């Protein structure tokens, strides 16, 4: 990883965020462990941290879901909620970042405040904070359809190039309109306006080439970093972007690729109308993960091996963010150690100890983190009787404070 230093979260405060009625917890470790039984609120805690930045956090949840539900499953209400973090940037400057529902606003609205002042543009946030995460939900990436892998890749691109989301949205919007016009043509038997279709295909070509180029660039940079061995002793992954548009960009200038896309779409209107969908384009791309040491595709790997592939990609991604921003992002690793055997776990812990990033790890069992004694700070979350408790785990004592 680039010799950047870490962004550090030194305190987290929660108010009625999901299962947490209220919580204030200071962090002084570069590696922070949160352990506790199922339902103790560990993932909720990571989610709160992930919301202190651009985007919708690690569950991609709607704001209205995030307030603590009171009054039972039926007829319950969600309370207004807040999450606030105190950060220290690599220059030692502290800042506060808070988010939550506005005082008198609707529960679907979420506001962000940087040092008390409203944040108008998410792009400003990206300059100050960044987090990457790995959750158990992401294990499904290898079984699910290509769409989930594409969205995974787009989120990785977006974290580095905030305008990527707009390119994807613009492409999708133009394509949806093209599909609509072609469907109308088919249903009503009248020719769709060719100039209108050409206008939409032109928008698709411009945004499609741009987003394919961004995906291709990111995959190349991730592969370079993983080949360099950013993941240390941890088994490395290799990524392949399966997308004819991205492949064409390797051989021809972007303008020529756009031209060809326009021609291809213009020629396939009849077929696409019959199919009810646009059959070619970067919206059909797939991302293939390969276990580098074994040279096997992820689909043929074991559960633990698949987990290791994801860890490798996430660590490399953190490295790219560090190089681009000048600070290493927070690493939020939910239940990551559980599927790994002792050897891989230790390789992961060693890789984390090497990274300049602050890492938050969760697990149900503190025992698996034993190799991190002396390196990590640990907390135990307890549900039920005394809600909102996070107790320092004295088995882990941080050697020197941050």
């Amino acid at each position, binding site marked *: 990883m680039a010799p950047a230093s870490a962004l550090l979260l030194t305190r987290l405060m929660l108010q009625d965020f999901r299962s947490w009625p209220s919580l204030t917890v200071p962090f002084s470790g570069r590696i922070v462990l949160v352990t506790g039984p199922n339902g103790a609120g560990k993932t909720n805690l990571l989610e709160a941290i992930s919301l202190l930045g651009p985007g919708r956090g690690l569950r991609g949840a709607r704001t209205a879901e995030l307030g603590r539900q009171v009054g039972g499953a039926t007829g319950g209400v969600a309370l207004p909620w807040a999450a606030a973090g105190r950060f220290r940037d690599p220059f030692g400057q502290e800042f506060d970042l808070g988010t939550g529902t506005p005082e008198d606003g609707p529960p679907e609205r979420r506001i962000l405040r940087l040092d008390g002042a409203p944040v108008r543009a998410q792009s400003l946030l990206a300059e100050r904070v960044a987090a990457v995460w790995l959750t158990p939900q992401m294990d499904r990436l290898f079984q699910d359809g290509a769409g989930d892998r594409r969205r995974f890749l787009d989120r990785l691109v977006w974290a580095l190039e905030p305008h990527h989301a*707009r390119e994807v949205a613009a492409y999708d919007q133009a394509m949806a*309109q*093209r599909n609509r016009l072609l469907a*109308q043509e088919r249903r009503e038997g009248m020719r769709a306006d060719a*100039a*209108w279709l*050409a*206008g*939409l295909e*032109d928008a698709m070509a411009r945004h499609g080439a741009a987003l394919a180029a961004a995906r291709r660039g990111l995959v190349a940079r991730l592969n370079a970093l993983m080949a360099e061995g950013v993941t240390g002793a941890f088994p490395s992954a290799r990524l392949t972007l399966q997308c004819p548009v991205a492949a064409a960009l390797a051989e021809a200038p972007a303008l020529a690729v756009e031209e060809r896309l326009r021609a291809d779409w213009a020629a396939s209107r009849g077929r696409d109308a019959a199919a009810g969908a646009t059959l070619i384009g970067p919206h059909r791309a797939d991302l293939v993960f390969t276990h580098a040491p074994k040279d096997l595709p992820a689909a043929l790997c074991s559960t633990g091996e698949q987990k290791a592939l994801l860890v490798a990609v996430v660590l490399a991604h953190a490295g790219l963010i560090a190089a681009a921003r000048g600070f290493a992002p927070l690493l939020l690793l939910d239940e990551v150690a559980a599927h790994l055997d002792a050897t891989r776990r230790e390789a992961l812990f060693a890789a984390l100890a090497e990274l300049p990033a602050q890492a938050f790890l969760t697990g149900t069992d503190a025992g698996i983190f034993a190799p991190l004694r002396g390196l990590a700070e640990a907390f135990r979350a307890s549900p039920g009787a005394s809600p909102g408790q996070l107790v320092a785990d004295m088995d882990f004592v941080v050697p020197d404070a941050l």
Partner: protein
Amino acid sequence: MATDPNPIEHLIGLLARLPGLGRRSARRAVLRMLMQPEQAMLPLAEALRAAAAAVQPCQICGNLDATNPCGICRDSQRDQGLICVVEGVSELWALERAHAHRGLYHVLGGTLSALGGIGPEDLAVQPLLARIEGAAEPVREVILALPATVDGATTAHYLTDRLRPTGAQVTRLAQGVPIGGALDVLDEGTLAAALKARRVV
């Protein structure tokens, strides 16, 4: 007319429906007016009545004005061979405020949107073509000052195609208009620069 049982709430409700005015600011405005009905309220009511009676869309360009054709279309000092196509009157006014355009305008009344159900026949495309065909002085250039959104770009592409037979040169605003940017919120400097650096499409 029956007297409104609650004229204050009625007024607040009407004002709050206007763009840029929430209930809160509508209430503030109404309170301020009610404290000086003679100076702040009756002149406003009179101005509203007068504007509603006099203002209409220009039969040539679609601008809103108290004369028809509008003041811009009647101004012989303006370059009659140059037409700037805008999405709405708000964009026309923004360009006028920037004093960036010396020619005429054409208000399209929206942009193409297959999802929004807005097709070419819902926009003032035919009037634009007819206007260029029948112009006393030939139209040399049509500037497409449409928003840099997917719908804006698609509409510009569409118009370029339809305008080709007229022989007029078609130009677009250059970069500098942020993607997704609405013209009427841009600062005047950016607008003027974008208009100056327009390019042939």
